[in-house]
């Protein structure tokens, strides 16, 4: 009996969630990654848009007719889908930014590595790059005598 009462009390919320979280459901279907971060992001964003409607429902008595009224309100749809769309914006925008950052880091590392190589060549000579002997194309004129 309690479960029936609980189910009857949760149905309006379920209704709002079932309809309002459809963008998150779609994202969940297309996210095949192990971490499931994409679907998590869309879900969180989607939920953010539905939260005002859910609170209004719960504050208004959690009735079925109130739930149906909310579902017919275009602003509720706007917020739910809009927030999901914002979630998708985050998903598409942030990785390229991260990639730019990673490329900058990689370039910095390249510079550092090359600088160390240059230092080694200055100290030990070009032969260090060719332990088996300098190829003809790489031979430079003899070093000037050390003063």
């Amino acid at each position, binding site marked *: 009996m309690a479960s029936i009462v609980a189910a009857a009390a949760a149905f309006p919320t379920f209704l709002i969630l079932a309809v309002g979280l459809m963008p998150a459901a779609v994202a969940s279907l297309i996210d095949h990654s192990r971490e499931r971060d994409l679907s*998590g992001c869309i879900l*969180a964003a989607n939920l*953010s848009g539905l939260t005002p409607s859910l609170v209004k429902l719960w504050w208004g008595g959690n009735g079925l007719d109130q739930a149906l009224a909310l579902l017919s309100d275009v602003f509720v749809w706007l917020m739910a889908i809009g927030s999901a769309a914002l979630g998708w914006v*985050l998903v598409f925008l942030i990785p390229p930014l991260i990639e730019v950052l*990673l490329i900058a880091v990689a370039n910095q590392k390249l510079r550092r*590595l090359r600088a160390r190589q240059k230092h080694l060549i200055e100290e030990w*000579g070009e032969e260090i790059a060719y332990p088996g002997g300098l190829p003809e194309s790489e031979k430079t004129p003899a070093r000037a005598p050390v003063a």
Partner: protein
Amino acid sequence: MRAPTARPPRAPSSIFDDISARPLPARYELRLGEPLDDLTTPVAAACRVADRENANLDLYALMGDPDLPPRGEAIERLDGISHANLVNQIAVGRVAGAGDRGLHQAVVYERPRGGPLARPDRVPTLDEDALRVLVIAPLCAALRALHNRGVVHRGVRPDNLYFLDAVDGRVGLGDCIIGVPGQAQPLAYEPIERASAPALGRGIGGPEADLYALGVTVLAFLGGAPPGQGLDDVALLRARLDRGTQGALVGGRRFSPRLDTLVGGLLADQIEARWGLDNLDEWLKGERVAINLFLRAERAEKPFRFDGHDCHTTRTVAEAFNSNQAETLLELRSERLEGWLSGELDEPDLAANIAARRRSMSTSRGLRAYPPDELIARVCIDLDPSGPIRYRGMTVTFDGIGPLLAAAVATGDEALANTLAAMISAGLPIAWIEALPERRKHLVHRVAQYIRLQRYLAHPALGFGIERCLYDLNPGLRCFSPLVAAARSHTPKTLLRALDKGEGKGGDWIDPHVAGFIAAALHPKAEATLAETPQPGRPRSVRAMTGLVLHAVAQKATRAGPLPNLARAMREPLVAIIKGLHGRSRRKGMTTALDDAIARGDLPAMLALLGDRRTRTRDRRAYADAVIQYARLSTAIDRVRRGGRRRRQRAAVIGHRLAARIAYLALGITVAAVTVGYVV
């Protein structure tokens, strides 16, 4: 009756104090323009000497050949000697002569008042009494004084005897310091075991050589003529080999029984039978002294005919074999010699030795071990173990090798020098030592020396080779390098200073003679340092490094003082060695340190810098580490350059995670804000 074995000559006691290199005190002024013919010897010119501190003394000097080794051991052991029957020695030292042939060894003597007893070509006749008083007794006393000091005279002959005092007729024996031992002696005055060697290769020998010469001197005065007069050296030697020395020099002449005994005892060809000073003393006292008839046992009735000669003794066979190597090889393949040795001379052991040598000729292993000329030389040693070494037609005594080599190098006789070098390489001096047990015992240090010389000849690098052998065998000999003036090449110290003054011809500072001279003077320190010092790869650098080692060791040992010019002359090739190091900063640091040491003229410091094995090891290891490090860096660079796809994947993962975190945060903020809004 065997004569005592003489001590071998010692090297100078110290390179700081080589007595034979000391200059003659400045107070003695040699008047080269006032020669004294009656005192001149076959190997030294005599001239008047003025003593600046005592004008009353009547002095003369003998000057030797600067290209021959000095008798360092005689100079050292006779220092300060004074004896009634020796010409009074005043001073010994080096003096400059005319021209640039180096410093001559000179001895200053008090001039004998009565002059010489005889001339080389004119000998007065003396009866037995006069002989005993004027010749035998004084010579016996003089030789005893010398032999007691370990000096063998090797110049006993009539024209080397002097009336020291015109009044009492005291006779004294003359000079023995100038010249190579035996060099001045006519052939008749050389014992048979040394007579076949050339004048410069007769060696010092032992007291038995002096006793023999005394015997021939007695014979000369008895006959009133030099023995063997009228025969050239070849004929005289042949006669002595064929008939024995007594047969050749005395012939059919008879003297009094006492003189016959004396002459027979002193002229014995067999060393063991020859009289010693004790026998002579007994004779002088009038006692009966027997002649050992053992000397007659080794002569065969039936001769061994070879190359047109009749050989009655093994010594004669050895001489004949040495004169005709081709015929000898053919002869050795037969057993004729063995038959003669066993049958005529009763020498079965010797015959067995020869047989073993003959059998070795028929095997390739034997021929590899002993090439034909070496085999013949060893056969000659077997036949005449107390004689000289005979090799490729050349004859030299064991202790004459050094002086003969010096003469060969000084005169540019490359053929002779190479023959002597080949003889040493073949181990023949060692074979000669080992031919008699007595020699094996007393000359063990010479065996070690000749093993070392063989190593030097097998390794003809700077500091080794024939030049090293030359100076090792002739301590006190000047350096024959053409780089510096002869007058400044007698000691390592003067040589270094001459090179520092820029006297090196063409600016060069090392050559095989300089290297061999220094290495021999500073043995074994020089060799030990060379062995410890790492050698660079290129030949020119090896030469420079070896030169630096030798000069540095010499500078330190002789305390020659700073040598900045010499150090500067070495800079270029040494900097080339530094360039062989891999590390730039290490090269720069070493070059700076090298220049500091060069400015100070400090060769040992330069050697310490360049010869430090640890520096090269550290450089090599650091270079190897750097190569590995460079390769690792290359791999890392490659990885970074090729990481685009991975970077994109990583950016996607991180980006989605960040997006999710932002969304969660936004959700939390929204829930909180809405809840608060409704509550408030």
